[in-house]
């Protein structure tokens, strides 16, 4: 329980944790999914599992963009960048994600022009400064990030900047939740909704989860107290046999979302008929591509894309972990061949991936306890 010392409001944390114990029916097993990878990270980092009764199980959801990206898409992006005219740009998170022939960073070591940017707007500036090269931005992310890519593309179009394109891997959260609810081996009682995705889409898009599926949702902030309060919210609903959408993160999330961001997305993107998700397979209308009016800035239309499909390394069980069927440490490669330093699967790459979070906090803690026990 050493993480508790770091909590800002320890009394409130203790009180909320007690409230959770009071609300949880001891004869019932609860499976609550936190959709967002940021929440997964916080849950492990703060050791929140220790504050919950054993019959509340937190299932880690698909909300880590790096983790759900199939390896074939990385290979496709890198294939475009084999062209010596192309500069490959991406966020730092992407750089260590393994493709079949290595990660973007490993390609850089072999001579490919690979550069980290912290904003899509900076990839655009790079294109302005290098008129004789083509700058490709490898875009990933949910609705939190997609509006920024959209504004960048609108600017490229307004400037008639023709040496810039986006390799679009933006995905949308709602179809992924639907796929999880439709999956026969998944039984989820309630959801902790993503915080920053919801600043863009608002709370309305979750309403069907309550209405049609009868599952409570609490859109949550990222502090330990936020997450615990969200668990209280959904437990109260489950106890009363109700299902509604509650906004725990009101201080940041407006119910209606961010209209300017939604407008920008609608101007630039349309839904793909289907898109492959690592671990979840093909999900219809779950990802974005550029509209025809932006074809000139669409890497997939400007370049030959091999359309690679790669099955994950057989021994790695990313799919099962991603669906919550296996816990990270139950994967055969966990902690041996697959570590944050040498990731085999994408769940180990990002700090928001459940394997990396589990490795960094839970696994190290257990390893330490075991070694102390063996000395004693």
């Amino acid at each position, binding site marked *: 329980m050493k993480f508790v010392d770091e909590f800002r409001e320890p009394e409130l944390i203790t009180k909320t944790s007690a409230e959770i114990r009071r609300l949880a029916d001891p004869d019932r097993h609860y499976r609550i999914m936190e959709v967002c990878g940021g929440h997964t990270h916080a849950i492990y*980092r703060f050791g929140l599992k220790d504050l919950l009764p054993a019959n509340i199980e937190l299932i880690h959801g698909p909300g880590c963009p790096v983790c759900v990206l199939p390896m074939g898409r990385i290979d496709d992006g890198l294939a475009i960048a084999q062209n010596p005219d192309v500069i490959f740009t991406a966020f730092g998170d992407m750089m260590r994600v393994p493709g079949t022939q290595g990660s973007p960073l490993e390609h850089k070591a072999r001579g490919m022009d690979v550069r980290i940017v912290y904003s899509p707007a900076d990839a655009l500036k790079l294109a302005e400064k290098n008129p004789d090269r083509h700058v490709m931005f490898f875009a990933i*992310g949910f609705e939190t990030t997609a509006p920024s890519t959209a504004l960048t593309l609108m600017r490229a179009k307004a400037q008639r900047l023709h040496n810039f394109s986006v390799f679009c891997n933006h995905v949308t959260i709602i179809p992924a939740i639907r796929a999880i609810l439709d999956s026969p081996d998944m039984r989820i009682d309630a959801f902790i909704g993503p915080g920053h995705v919801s600043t863009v889409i608002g709370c309305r898009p979750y309403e069907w989860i309550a209405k049609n599926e009868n599952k409570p949702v609490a859109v949550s902030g990222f502090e330990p107290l936020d997450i615990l309060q969200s668990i209280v919210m959904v437990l109260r609903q489950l106890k009363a046999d109700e299902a509604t959408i509650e906004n725990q993160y009101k201080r*940041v999330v407006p119910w209606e979302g961010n209209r300017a961001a939604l407008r920008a997305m609608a101007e630039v993107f349309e839904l793909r008929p289907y898109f492959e998700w690592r671990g979840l397979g093909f999900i219809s209308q779950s990802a974005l591509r550029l509209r025809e009016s932006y074809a000139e800035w669409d890497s997939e239309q400007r370049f030959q894309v091999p359309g690679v499909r790669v099955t994950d390394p057989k021994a790695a069980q990313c799919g099962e972990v991603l669906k919550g069927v296996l816990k990270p440490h139950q994967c055969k490669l966990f902690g041996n061949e697959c570590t944050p330093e040498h990731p085999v699967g994408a769940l180990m790459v990002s700090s928001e991936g459940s394997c990396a979070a589990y490795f960094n906090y839970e696994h190290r803690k257990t390893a330490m306890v075991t070694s102390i026990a063996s000395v004693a």
Partner: protein
Amino acid sequence: MCLAIPGQVVELFPDQPNTAVIDVVGVRRKVNLGLLQDNLPVQGDWVLIHVGFAMSKISEADAIDQMRTLRALGEAEAAMQEVQGYGMETGYGMETAENPEPSPGILMPGLKKDWA
């Protein structure tokens, strides 16, 4: 990558309504305000920033809370690195698109502030 970084608007440009200079614990960078065009911030307002774009206006208290959350999550350093990396034309010696080789000696000066 879905965590947002809090910052204060310190400079606006009348000829570029969608641009502002934001101060994040002492580090100042230009960010894009296009996502707030329905309700543009004024000087002194606090915003949450994600990949170089301000995505929502927040209160000062929430901004302080958010920076504390980033610290508690062990993400403050990555957040500052992200902010330092915005706008590669400034050439601050970080590992940005402009300057692919990282250079030593860039610390996070502002993080010494009490509340950060």
